[in-house]
């Protein structure tokens, strides 16, 4: 990992955000396992450094599009636990008034254009947001999060072509967690993923998605270049999802070994790595970190309790928001 250089608050916020994501997911998983959550959900645990490294390089004006595995992006882009748990449980105070749920969760006020339950479904949206930014003379940048599985969708190649033709301020962030649902990525992706972007003349980078500082540093550079009209860019981030495709995907040894999971969790965990670095660099003590973790855990527990007690939307809301005024 890199040497500490700028102010320590940024580092502590990155750590804090990563732990918030992990804690959110642990609580969401418990809600599922105790049958308190309607439907199911896709855990972001293990991929925290990707969402946090990228979103910490963005402002509230910058936009992101998220995926079915979207809780991490949502937290990283500035969302609060209370509204997120309310959304997960289908409550009125949720970010989407309970109409979106886990797969459409977003705090729109911080530039999150929504999680998308169609794999690859938001690639057009992200690129269109960038087109709007350029056309109206704004200077915001849009990051399009998607997984390795989504690289098989044709839409990606249509919009990368146009983004490259028109130099749009968009960053395609491919979270390669090694699995396309229940299938190894190597079985669904021919050739090189970054080479596909390069074929359109897009500068593409492949980096360790478990190293939050590396992710953040690269993103900062690319965001600055996007603002100068040098976009688009493509980043492939090597990462790992700790859970199955969704919370119900428990028995998964037919496609992924327990040894492999153990190796990633013990040797490449983004939070453990960054925590070690923070202590080593003298940015935070073990005690301070434990206190931060405990505070986040407390926040989550309180938010879950709040969401469980919160009320469902009134039935009169069912046909509200079909059309905008």
């Amino acid at each position: 990992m890199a040497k500490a250089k700028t102010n320590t608050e940024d580092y502590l916020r990155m750590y804090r955000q990563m732990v918030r994501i992990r804690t959110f997911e642990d609580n969401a998983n418990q809600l599922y396992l105790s049958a308190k959550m309607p439907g199911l959900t896709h855990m972001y645990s293990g991929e925290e450094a990707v969402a946090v490294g990228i979103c910490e390089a963005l402002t509230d004006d910058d936009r992101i599009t998220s995926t079915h595995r979207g809780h991490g992006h949502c937290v990283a882009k500035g969302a609060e636990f209370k509204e997120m748990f309310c959304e997960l449980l289908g409550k009125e105070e949720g970010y989407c008034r309970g109409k979106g749920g886990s797969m459409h969760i977003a705090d729109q006020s911080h530039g999150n254009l929504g999680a998308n339950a169609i794999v690859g479904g938001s690639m057009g949206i992200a690129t269109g947001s960038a087109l709007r930014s350029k056309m109206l003379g704004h200077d915001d940048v849009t990051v399009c999060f998607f997984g390795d599985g989504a690289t098989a969708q044709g839409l990606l190649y249509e919009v990368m072509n146009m983004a490259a033709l028109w130099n749009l301020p968009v960053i395609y962030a491919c979270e390669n967690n090694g699995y396309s649902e229940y299938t190894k990525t190597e079985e669904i992706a021919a050739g090189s993923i970054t080479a596909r972007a390069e074929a359109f003349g897009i500068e593409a980078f492949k980096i360790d998605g478990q190293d939050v500082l590396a992710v953040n540093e690269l993103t900062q550079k690319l965001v600055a270049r996007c603002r100068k009209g040098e976009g688009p860019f493509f980043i492939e981030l090597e990462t790992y999802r700790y859970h199955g495709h969704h919370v119900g995907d428990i028995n998964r040894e037919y496609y992924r070994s327990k040894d492999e999971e153990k190796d990633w969790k013990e040797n490449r965990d983004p939070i453990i790595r960054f925590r070690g670095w923070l202590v080593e660099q003298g940015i935070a003590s073990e005690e301070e970190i434990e206190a931060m973790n405990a505070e986040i855990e407390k926040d989550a527990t309180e938010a879950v309790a709040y969401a469980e007690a919160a009320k469902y939307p009134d039935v009169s809301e069912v046909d509200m928001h079909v059309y905008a005024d």
Partner: protein
Amino acid sequence: MRNITLSQAVNEALAEEMRRDPTTFIIGEDVAEAGTPFKVLSGLVEEFGTDRVIDTPIAEPGFMGMAVGAAMTGARPIVDLMFGDFIFLIMDQLCNQAAKIHYMSGGKLNVPLVVRTNMGATRRSAAQHSQSLQALVAHIPGLKVAMPSSAYEAKGLMKTAIRDNNPVVIFEDKLMYQDKAPVQEEEYLIPFGEANVKREGKDISLIATSSMVQVAEKAAEILSKEGIEAEVIDPRTIVPLDEKTLIESVKKTSRAIVIDEGHQSYGVTSEIASRLNEKAFYHLDAPVLRMGAMDVPVPFSPALEDITVPTPEGVAENARKLCSGELIHAA
């Protein structure tokens, strides 16, 4: 009042709205210098430049998706979909994304965009360039659907569509681009959900969309000579639908034929006929009849293609049967 073509009417509506609102732009294939294959957009790129009249690669899902993203973040895109048949290519972006984003976000995100596309057979363009697919999109909550029946409607509905905060799909009949109609110089808008009673009558209601309004009007002429007075109504938008005007008409005439160029089964005609049955049943003297396109892919040969769509003679024939009681016990 001056007469202009439907093509000119659309062009004027786009130009006026693009002058009015700098966040509007047109995106699609061959929309700039080419002005589309039907030349509907001629002259717009000269006035607004290639930043706002954007030629895309041939990638319908791509530019449709980009329009959704631009609309969600403060622009008002007008998507030019060269043929209505290409709607199948943009279905995910239109129906899974654009139509649902306002709802899924609990009302926090809007998608103000227009898809202008076309419909209509008998142009000898065969099965993939002749379909009338309005029923497909009208089925999806969150989308509005307009079907102009003349240059006047084409202009007024387009202006309303561009100012609407929802995704709107406008189907222009490609055989009507050169048809002229009186269109005032002064600005006007046509509100959505207001049907237009084109001709008053007491014996039967002919409810028709787009070019089928002309078919219904011609049928009404034929019937009038025989002493049958048909009322012709153009819903103008099928979503939202002006049920009230349609039901009032049927309560008065007690008979109705619904005419639309989409396939008859599971189509626009079925939906409207069903609503009339549910809401005006005790006023009916005969079953409400549907007349849509035949349930076959549109054939190429003129000898075959022409018999797949409703004609004035066919409508008049069915109206006669309904008025004489012949179809009351039809098997």
